[in-house]
């Protein structure tokens, strides 16, 4: 299972609420996307789920268990991993160390080695560059490190925040393929993206955020010809 339910959360940084009364659901096995223009609160939603900026009101359940006010490392331990916005590789660490950190909570070396093989299979480039400092790699390669690092956790639910931000179209296309493959491995995905068309092409369902509120929800097909989606981006 990997069933995430968010019930009426309100999240704020200082005074002004950024998320207001947001509810949504991520179904096990699916790719669920969050669409919305810059500043609509997508990353804040992720920070709420991860316990980095816990919500002020409302609750978050993962597989029926409330995780709303758990420390981040406990939320991760429940089977959630995240590929953060901007990739956030550890610049002064090798590719191998970055990947090892993805599996930080796994202490069985054999399991870690097996996961590493899987990641190397998806990204052969990372195997060639295993000793290179991540900070010296190109944006596209850093994206591989960041995605690979997320996979090293072998999560039930993988949260991905704008993986194609700042990448060339070729890498963007490759990224969407990889996300689809990840999902086919049985990992539930919560995908935040700006790329509406490519996102809806691989997602099963989604939500549209506008100024911290959910303004539309539905299957990918429904969202594709929903007025609110267009309004949220172009309106």
């Amino acid at each position, binding site marked *: 299972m990997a069933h995430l339910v968010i019930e009426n959360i309100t999240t704020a940084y200082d005074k002004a609420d950024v998320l207001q009364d947001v509810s949504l659901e991520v179904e096990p096995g699916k790719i669920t996307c969050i669409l919305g223009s810059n500043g609509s609160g997508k990353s804040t939603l992720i920070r709420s789920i991860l316990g980095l900026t816990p919500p002020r009101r409302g609750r978050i359940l993962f597989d029926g268990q409330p995780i709303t006010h758990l420390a*981040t*490392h406990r939320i991760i331990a429940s089977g959630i991993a995240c590929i953060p916005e901007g990739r956030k590789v550890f610049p002064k*660490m090798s590719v191998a*160390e970055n990947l*090892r*950190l993805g599996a*930080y909570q796994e202490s069985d070396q054999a399991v870690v080695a097996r996961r590493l093989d899987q990641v190397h299979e998806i990204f052969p480039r990372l195997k060639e560059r295993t000793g290179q400092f991540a900070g010296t790699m190109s944006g596209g390669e850093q994206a591989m490190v960041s995605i690979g690092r997320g996979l090293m956790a072998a999560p039930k639910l993988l949260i991905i925040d704008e993986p194609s931000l700042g990448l060339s179209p070729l890498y963007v296309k490759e990224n969407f393929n990889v996300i689809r493959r990840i999902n086919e491995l049985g990992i539930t995905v919560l995908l935040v993206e700006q790329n509406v068309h490519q996102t809806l092409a691989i997602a099963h369902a989604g939500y549209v955020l506008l100024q911290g509120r959910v303004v539309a929800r539905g299957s990918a097909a429904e969202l594709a010809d929903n007025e609110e989606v267009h309004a949220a981006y172009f309106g």
Partner: protein
Amino acid sequence: MDLGLLGQYLLNGLMLGMIYAMVAVGFTLFFGVLDVIKFSHGDVLMVGTFAGLATYLGLESVGIDSPWLQLLLVVLVSVSAMAVLGALIAKFLILPLKDAPPLNTLLATLMLGSVLRESVRLFYPNGSNPKPFPRLLPTDEWSLGTLTLRVDNLILLAAGVAAIVGVHLLITRTKLGLAIRAVAQDGETARIMGINFEWIVLLTFGLGSGLAALAGVMNGLYYNETNFGIGLLLGVIGFSAAILGGLGNVYGAILGGFIFAGLQTLGSVALPAVLPSVPSAYKDVFAFTAVIVIMAWKPTGLIAEKSSERV
């Protein structure tokens, strides 16, 4: 100057460099994980030295007088008590101030340092006077020409090397070290990796403080004396060494420690030679002046070109 005397200076400089490096590593680790300057670090070292001294006196009073056993227990009590004290300071003073302006942390730890120092002065029996620190190591000597090698000094040097190599291996080869480096480079992403941020911070402060306690005991064993103000001087020197090497960089801190000791040694050799009226006690003035000059020349430290470098 003859070779034997030069060797003596060299050994003394190495010994001091080792002690300074051990203090500086703490400063740099704390800055690495939390971006804070912990000014009470030197006074924790001093409390550790006195904890070791008290342990020795306690063992004497109950009749345990094997020097090796005494040494073992002195080091064990001092290091573990200061590791716990360091973690407690992090938990109850530094972490709560994490989101406050950095000056508040600086001020709070500066005051804590004074509290520790004055407490030892007031409450340790006859605490305002220098205390003899026991010779727990064999003092056999070997003479090589005019150079005298003492077994206790060699053991202390070896212990210092072992401690520094140990820290290096811990930081580079263990999972704990990986987590410390991750927290130092990007605390939030480290948390996203599932690292228990607070736990790593406490362990880091425990590690740095235990290392300082070891440095304090070594300093006591080397000079066979200690006093309540020792932490103030060693703290300022350790901090200077950490700054010299580029705060946040472990190897920089180690290098900085040896550079400072080198400057002191140079000062005590060169000053009286050049200016006969200046006693060698001015070596600290010489070393600190040199540090100020180096800082003006390389404001971000000698080996921290990249200011993002951490641990």
